[in-house]
């Protein structure tokens, strides 16, 4: 495909910059991010390709790939990028964009985990692991997941049965304010 630079649609690139603060014009497609990515084997499109799609304004191609949802946030790409592009930050941004808009690829299982995790933080201020595991297993329709490791963990006293006691309600307030701010955008 032949592209005229003047025809480039920068709307999506600007949206990504606004969401993440990352300037995608810096990427010169060396491929180092993909070379070091431990999850590249599971991605529809390599991280390098996603960077190119954003540069070219190919929004559909960027958000429909499973790439951002497969990213495990290990930061190897951002650390090795010779152009200081925060690729892992862009993956975060793409996930947030597709999660918010409901458009593009959303990994249902990962999203369930995120929502349940944040729900327990909002409620208790700290992570309540047993509550998280129970709620997550029910929400993700796999009620017996991790049953094989549970007895050992209970025997070793690694699982707390009661939720943490935190006096402050600040976490809840912060969640509510962030939600409001997101709505104002």
């Amino acid at each position, binding site marked *: 495909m032949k592209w005229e630079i003047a025809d480039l649609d920068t709307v999506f690139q600007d949206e990504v910059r606004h969401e993440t603060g990352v300037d995608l014009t810096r990427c010169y497609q060396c491929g180092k991010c993909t070379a070091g990515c431990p999850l590249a084997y599971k991605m529809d499109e390599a991280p390098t390709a996603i960077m190119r799609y954003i540069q070219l304004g190919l929004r559909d191609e960027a958000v429909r790939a499973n790439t951002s949802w497969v990213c495990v946030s290990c930061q190897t790409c951002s650390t090795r990028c010779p152009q200081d592009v925060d690729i892992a930050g862009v993956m975060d941004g793409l996930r947030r964009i597709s999660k918010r808009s409901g458009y593009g690829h959303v990994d249902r299982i990962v999203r369930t985990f995120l929502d349940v995790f944040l729900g327990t933080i909002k409620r208790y201020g*700290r992570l309540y692991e047993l509550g998280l595991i129970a709620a997550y297993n029910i929400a993700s329709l796999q009620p017996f997941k991790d049953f094989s490791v549970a007895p050992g963990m209970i025997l070793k006293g690694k699982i707390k049965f009661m939720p943490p006691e935190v006096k402050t309600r600040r976490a809840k307030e912060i969640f509510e304010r962030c939600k409001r701010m997101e709505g104002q955008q």
Partner: protein
Amino acid sequence: MSEHPVTPSAPAGDPRLSYAYYPGCSLHSTAEEFDRSTRFCADHLGMTLSEVPDWICCGSTPAHMTNHVLSLALPAETLLQARKMEPKPKAVIAPCSACYSRLRIANYEIKEKGMRDKVAEALGEDYPGDMEVRHLLDVVVNDVGLEAIAEKISRHLHGLKIASYYGCLLTRPHYATHFDDTEHPTSMDRLVEKLGGTPVDYPFKTDCCGASFAFSHPDVVWKLTGNILKSIKNAGAQAIMVACPLCQSNLDLRQSKIAKELGMEIDLPVFYFTQLLGFCLGGAEKDLEIKKMMISAGDVMEELELKSAGEVS
């Protein structure tokens, strides 16, 4: 370790080694032994740790995958509370690499990326991003110092072959972390050497274990953690040392399953660095809780006990 006669009493705290302490959620639940051994080591190295009052979760990966401001405001809230402690602590110590990374990223984005106003709006209060954050490993190796540690230990690791696993967030992302090389960190290896152990070199020491994908896509953890364990086993290590509760959980809790998948015997105990350091400082089972590990460290500890028996007066 119950054979060890008495736990030596802790020396007086050194005022230069006084810090605020942010244990994080894991150290209050699945990684209680990391918390306990941290407190033991701190006491015996002359450090004073004051827990940040009413600290909250850093939000970890779920927050930064969901809402940018939230991912900065949650850690900033804890740093704001630390900043109000009397006297104002010179740094907040985080023993969990994920917490450490999130706390430092919050400071970085507030100071360098113009996020101060938005975070203030979310907090309902201004936080200028100036509460210093350090990883426990950094403080032990660089503030207490390896030479001081060598003087304080009463037992040694007697050449035990230890593979230090650093994982992702102790040294990444490079713009937020600060105390060791991003690709070839050596802090834990130098500590192992100082404690009389033999550091084992292997190529996967900063590779990702799969982190919280243990919940959503466990096949990823089996593959990535499998690569790490295989590499460590093939390098001839007898034990693994980590500085993060999430790394420990994937390497230890998932190890039997992975060994079965790989069709190889792995059987490598996964210690927190504070457990082995604590052992050398004279800690007993109640101080270090080594029996909480899923892969038993019984044989390794028995051998260390025997070899150390001659050393202890």
